[in-house]
C-alpha cells in the first residue's frame, strides 16, 4: 500500500536520512595509553561494495594493546580501533549482492577484495587492493594507517568494505560470543596450529596463554599432537590452559631458565614445534621488554620468538602468530639458521578458516567463548583498555558492548 510507513517507504527513507546525519559513539585513540568514547561522524558508504554495519558486540584484541601503547607507526589520534566485531547490516552499497539490510553478520578482521593475486590464492590477509599505505601488511579494521587507515568496530557503526566477500551471516546455532571470537583470536589460534605443521605425536609448545594461545593449544590436539605444553606467567591463564585446552603448563616466573626447563621436559631434544602467541610485548627479559615495548627502540620485544628458537628441536618448526612492529628487532636469527628451523607466519586469512572451524565449534572441539572474561560498555572503554593492558581481575578477553550502560 503506497505511502504507508514501512521498510523503504517515504517516512522510513526520511527517518534514515535524518539518522545518517547524527553522530555516533565510538572508541577514539587520543595518544599512547589514552582512549575515550566520543561522538564521531557516522561512517558512510564510500564504495559501491561497502556496507555499514551496526555493531552489536566487539572485542579488544591483545594486538590492540600494541596500538594503545603507541608501538605501531602511523597510529593517528582520532582513529577508532577494533578488528573483532559482529553486528547487523544497516546499509549496503549499490553493487552489494550477497548481504541484505538486517542480516546478522560476523566480519573477518581482514579487509580483502577477493580478486587480487593473493586473494585468488587464499591469502586474503595479504590482499593487494586495500592498503594504500603499505605493502608490508594487508588491510585490517582499526589497526592504524599502516594497516590501511580504516576505522574499526569498537563503535556503534562501522564501514565494511567489500561486503560481498568478507562478512558471513552468523549461523542460527552459533553463540554471539563464539562468533565475535572467531573473527580473529580463535581463527588465529587454529591457523597458528596449522602453520606449526603438526603431525601425529608431535610435542607442541605454545608460548602465551592469551586467547590465541589457548585456541592454538586446543587446535594442536585436533591435528594429532602428542603433548601440548603452554607457557605463561599468569595463574588464571595457565589454569585456563589446563581446563580449556587440556595442556601441561609452565609458569616461566618459577624457573630460572624456561628454555632449559623445556629441554628437560622434552628429553633434551626440544619441542617439534613452538607457537609464538605472544608478540611484541613479551615479558621475561627486562632489557628486551623495556627496549622493545616501552621505549620502542626495536619493533617489539622478541623474547617469545627467541625462546621459541631456543626451545624447538633442530629441524623443528616455529609458527609466529604474535604481532610485531615493522622496524628491526633483535632476533636470534643465526641460531634459527644453524638449527635448520622452519619459520612460518602470517596474519590469518580468517574467512578461509571458517567452514572447518564452524564444524569444530558445533561439535565442541573448539570452544572460543571460554576465553571471554569481561564485557565492557563502550562508554567505559578507557577502563576496559586499562584493565586488559594491566591484566587486572584475571582479564583474558574483554568484549565491548555498544549502547550498554
Amino acid at each position, binding site marked *: 500500500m503506497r505511502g504507508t510507513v514501512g521498510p523503504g517507504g517515504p517516512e522510513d527513507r526520511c527517518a534514515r536520512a535524518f539518522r545518517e546525519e547524527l553522530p555516533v559513539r565510538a572508541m577514539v585513540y587520543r595518544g599512547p595509553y589514552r582512549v575515550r568514547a566520543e561522538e564521531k561522524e557516522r561512517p558512510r558508504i564510500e564504495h559501491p561494495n561497502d556496507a555499514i554495519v551496526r555493531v552489536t558486540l566487539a572485542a579488544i584484541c591483545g594486538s590492540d594493546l600494541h596500538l594503545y601503547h603507541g608501538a605501531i*607507526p602511523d597510529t593517528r589520534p*582520532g582513529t577508532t580501533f577494533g578488528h573483532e566485531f559482529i553486528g547487523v547490516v544497516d546499509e549496503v552499497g549499490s553493487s552489494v549482492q550477497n548481504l541484505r539490510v538486517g542480516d546478522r553478520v560476523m566480519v573477518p578482521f581482514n579487509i580483502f577484495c577477493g580478486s587480487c593475486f593473493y586473494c585468488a590464492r587464499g591469502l586474503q590477509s595479504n590482499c593487494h587492493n*586495500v592498503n594504500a599505505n603499505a605493502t608490508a601488511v594487508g588491510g585490517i579494521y582499526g589497526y592504524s594507517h599502516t594497516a590501511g587507515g580504516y576505522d574499526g568496530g569498537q563503535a556503534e557503526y562501522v564501514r565494511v568494505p567489500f561486503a560481498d*566477500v568478507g562478512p558471513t551471516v552468523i549461523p542460527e546455532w552459533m553463540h554471539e560470543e563464539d562468533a565475535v571470537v572467531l573473527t580473529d583470536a580463535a581463527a588465529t589460534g587454529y591457523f597458528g596450529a596449522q602453520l606449526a605443521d603438526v603431525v601425529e605425536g608431535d610435542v607442541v609448545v605454545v608460548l602465551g596463554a592469551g586467547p590465541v594461545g589457548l585456541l592454538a593449544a586446543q587446535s594442536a590436539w585436533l591435528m594429532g599432537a*602428542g603433548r601440548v605444553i603452554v607457557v605463561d606467567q599468569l595463574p588464571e591463564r595457565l589454569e585456563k590452559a589446563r581446563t580449556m585446552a*587440556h595442556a601441561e603448563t609452565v609458569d616461566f616466573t618459577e624457573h630460572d631458565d624456561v628454555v632449559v626447563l623445556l629441554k628437560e621436559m622434552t*628429553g633434551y631434544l626440544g619441542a617439534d614445534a613452538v607457537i609464538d602467541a605472544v608478540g611484541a610485548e613479551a615479558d621475561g627479559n*627486562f632489557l628486551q621488554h623495556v627496549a622493545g615495548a616501552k621505549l620502542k627502540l626495536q619493533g617489539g620485544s622478541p623474547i617469545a620468538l627467541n625462546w621459541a628458537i631456543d626451545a624447538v628441536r633442530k629441524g623443528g618448526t616455529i609458527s609466529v602468530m604474535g604481532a610485531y612492529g615493522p622496524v628491526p628487532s633483535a632476533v636470534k636469527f643465526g641460531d634459527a639458521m644453524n638449527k635448520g628451523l622452519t619459520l612460518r607466519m602470517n596474519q590469518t586469512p580468517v574467512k578461509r578458516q571458517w567452514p*572447518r572451524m564452524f564444524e569444530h565449534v558445533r561439535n565442541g572441539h573448539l570452544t572460543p567463548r571460554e576465553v571471554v572474561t569481561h564485557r565492557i560498555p563502550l562508554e567505559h572503554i578507557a577502563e576496559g583498555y586499562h584493565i586488559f593492558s594491566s591484566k587486572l581481575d584475571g582479564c583474558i578477553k574483554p568484549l565491548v558492548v555498544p549502547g550498554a550502560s
Partner: protein
Amino acid sequence: MSEPQDPRGPADRGPVDLHLADLDPDDPAYTYTADKPPLPETPEQLRARIPGWGVDLDPADRPSFPRERFDPGLNGAHWRFPERQVQHHPRERSIEHAFVTPVFGTSTPPSGLSGAVRRHAYRYSEGRNAHWLLLVAADRVGALEAALASFASRHPDDPVSETGVLSEPGHHPLRSRRGRSDVRHQVLDPVLVAAPWVAGGVLGYRVVRSAVRGVARSRAR
C-alpha cells in the same frame, strides 16, 4: 626363528611402539639415539581424553593446506579489478605501490604539523627506517596537536580518566599483580604517560613566564 623386521626405521615408528615404562626416566640417553622420545599417552588415551583429538590429522582437512591454492572463484568477488573509490582528499600511499589502491581507509586524513611529517615519511619506501621512524615521530606530534586542539573544544583531554587508571580501585590492583614479572617495568608506564604532560606543562610555564617578563620589561622602559 627371528622376529620380522619393521620396514620403517626406529625414528619413524612413532610414539605407539615406545613406552616410558620401558625406559629409565632419569636417563635422557634415549634421546641421543635415533628413537623419537616416548610420549606419556597413547593416541587411544588422547582420543578418549581430548575432544576432537586427531580430527584434523589429515593435512587435507586443514583449511590452510597447502598455503597457496589458486581458485579465482574462492571469494565470490564479481569483478576482475574492483571499482575505484573516490578520493575526497589527496591520499598518501606507499611508494612501493604503483597507485593508490582501489579501496582505502578514510579515517583521520593527515593534517597540521604531524600531517606534514607523515607526508614526508611517505617519500621513503617501507624498506627505509626513515619511513617508520618519521611516522612514529608524527604520531607523537599528532598526540600533542590533538591535546592542544581539544582544549579549544567542548571536550578537552583528561589525561587521568582517558588512561582508565580510575578503574584500579575496583579491580584488585595488588592481588592481580602479585608475583608477576612485568610489575618491574609497569612502574615505567605512569612515567611514559605523564612525561609528555609534565614536559608540556614546564615548557608552557616557561613560555608564559618569559612573555610576562618581556611585557613587564617593555613597560618599565
